[in-house]
């Protein structure tokens, strides 16, 4: 560890502030305000993958990287649906996952919202309907908002969450 601190002292500051462009700075501010207004400063999201290719999940994970760092705006991805306000649903609602998705939704306390993420849950991805798929998700759950993309990029997810927050009372 000593070697590390010596190295750090010798090389100077390495965690430089990554360039934040004006648009995303503006978005961040708006998002923080909306979360404060509508969810008392803390919006808890339970992300559920109902049969995606994992790219939507990777982009949601990217929201926590130092470029976006969504948590400091009061948006948390939580481990249990019982801690959640919102279910963020990706994937094609496979036959095998459907009962588990519905179960997770039941566990979320009221008031609750479902946001669909990516082209899969609305059946707009290139996947064709097969017997193994139950998408579109809106036939099974009350969907409040949709964030399109394949996968939606982190900035698109941030914009989508902002649009959702502006939509609800």
């Amino acid at each position, binding site marked *: *560890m000593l*070697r*590390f601190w010596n*190295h750090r002292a010798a*090389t100077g500051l*390495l965690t430089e502030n*990554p360039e934040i462009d004006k648009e995303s700075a503006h978005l961040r501010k708006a998002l923080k305000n909306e979360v404060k207004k509508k969810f008392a400063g803390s919006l808890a999201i339970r*992300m*559920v*993958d*109902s*049969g*995606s*290719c*994992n*790219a*939507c*999940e*990777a*982009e*949601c*994970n*990217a929201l*926590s*990287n*130092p*470029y976006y760092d969504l948590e400091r705006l009061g948006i948390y*991805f939580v*481990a*249990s*649906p019982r801690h959640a306000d919102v279910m963020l649903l990706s*994937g*094609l609602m*496979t*036959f*095998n*996952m459907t*009962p*588990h998705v519905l179960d*997770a939704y039941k566990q979320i306390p009221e008031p609750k919202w479902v946001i669909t993420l990516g082209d899969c849950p609305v059946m707009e*991805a*290139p*996947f*064709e*309907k*097969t*017997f*193994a*798929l139950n998408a579109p998700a809106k036939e099974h759950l009350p969907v409040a908002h949709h964030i399109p993309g*394949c*996968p939606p*990029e982190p900035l698109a997810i941030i914009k989508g969450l902002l649009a959702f927050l502006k939509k609800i009372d």
Partner: protein
Amino acid sequence: MRLIARYAKENETHFEIVTVYDVGLEKEKIPKDAPVLHSIAVKHPAAVWFERKIHDDFGIRIEGAFDNRPLVHQERFPSGLYPMQKAFDKTQIEEDPYKPYAYEAIGGDGVFQVSVGPIHAGIIEPGHFHFSQAGEDMLHQEVRHFYKYRAVEKMLEGKTLWEAKAVIERISGNESIAYQTVWRDILLEASGTELPVSLRKTHALLLEMERLAHHFTDLGFIPNDAGFGAALAYGSRLSEDVRRQLKALSGHRFGFGAISLEGVSMDREAMSEWIEEITSRLDFFESWINDIPSLWDRFDTTGILSQQNALAYDTVGIVARASGVAVDRRATPFYEAHGFAVQTGERGDVSARFKLRLAEAKHTLEMMHNLLDEKSEKVEAGSVKDGEYHSFAESSIGELFMAIDIKEGVIERFFVRDPSFMNWQALHLMMPGNIIADFPLINKSCDLSYAGNDL
């Protein structure tokens, strides 16, 4: 002899079982009425999932198998339906009453079961893990998957190779470019097209970019699962840098659509500078992480896969190489001419897998310099000829195998074996002797795909 895949197809008069080994493939015909297949699981334990899948897909009974439980068809799947049979044409099925699945469980005084999943406590894909516990110690673990089963194999039947591409590149997001690469090789072979060297280099470069993005994510997440969150901040930043660069090169952060025959124009000098920049950041990460003893306390001797087990279970990719098994589909004259050498580890524990990812990422960055090519040649694929084709690529997880039969210009049978399909079956071997709190760490050190496995 290493087992690569085992799958069935239905012809007009019979079922055909194809078993692919590293030394070649074997074909076996079985009759359509009361079809029976003899298990090879005694010799190759990893054949178990292939054979259970063959049963679920085609209704072929497996004789001499020690595991006859359904694999793809879960508790509510209608019995007696075999969707890969040509006669099956349903687009909607109804749920059956719940039929409990008999998990592998160890009994005894004080031994208890822990069920985890399919929905996990994080932003991860769904799958189920079933543990037999004696206190904190894991006695046994069973992996149960196929929650993401989308029936991709059935979906692609009757499509042309070009129509199938958009789905193939979305089978497993982390391995999209590898999937496109095996698709490309089948297209080239089926149409008798020669790929210009510059384009081959560019495609290989893109595949290495995908490997970097995936390895960097893991280099952050593995320490994070041992409670060292700072590494995740650094690793995820590196990974974001690669995704942004991949978007600049291919127009997409995951490289969907990146492998095209149109050619990619790139600024060789700018790309070279970018590689240098990432290399220096990775060097810093390495010297920093190597110097944190409490982290290596968690990594060392955790989740060991012995070389013997790695061989017995026909594992591939990082998992196999970290246990000293040198399997890598990049060991070809083309890659070797551009500086590739297989990287291996020895001990087969979490630390071996972590170090191997680090070594491979560094090696990939070196190799990328040699793959840079300013020429942007394009090629046009001729018309596709009927036949049976197969191809391999090394994805960020391991060896990827794809087989496509083309009949009358369209796909008659589509089969793909994700590297994860082999390695998931070996995961349980890493558990005995470890505590359940180390399971996420061990699992992450392998970082396998659920989507690619479940199809």
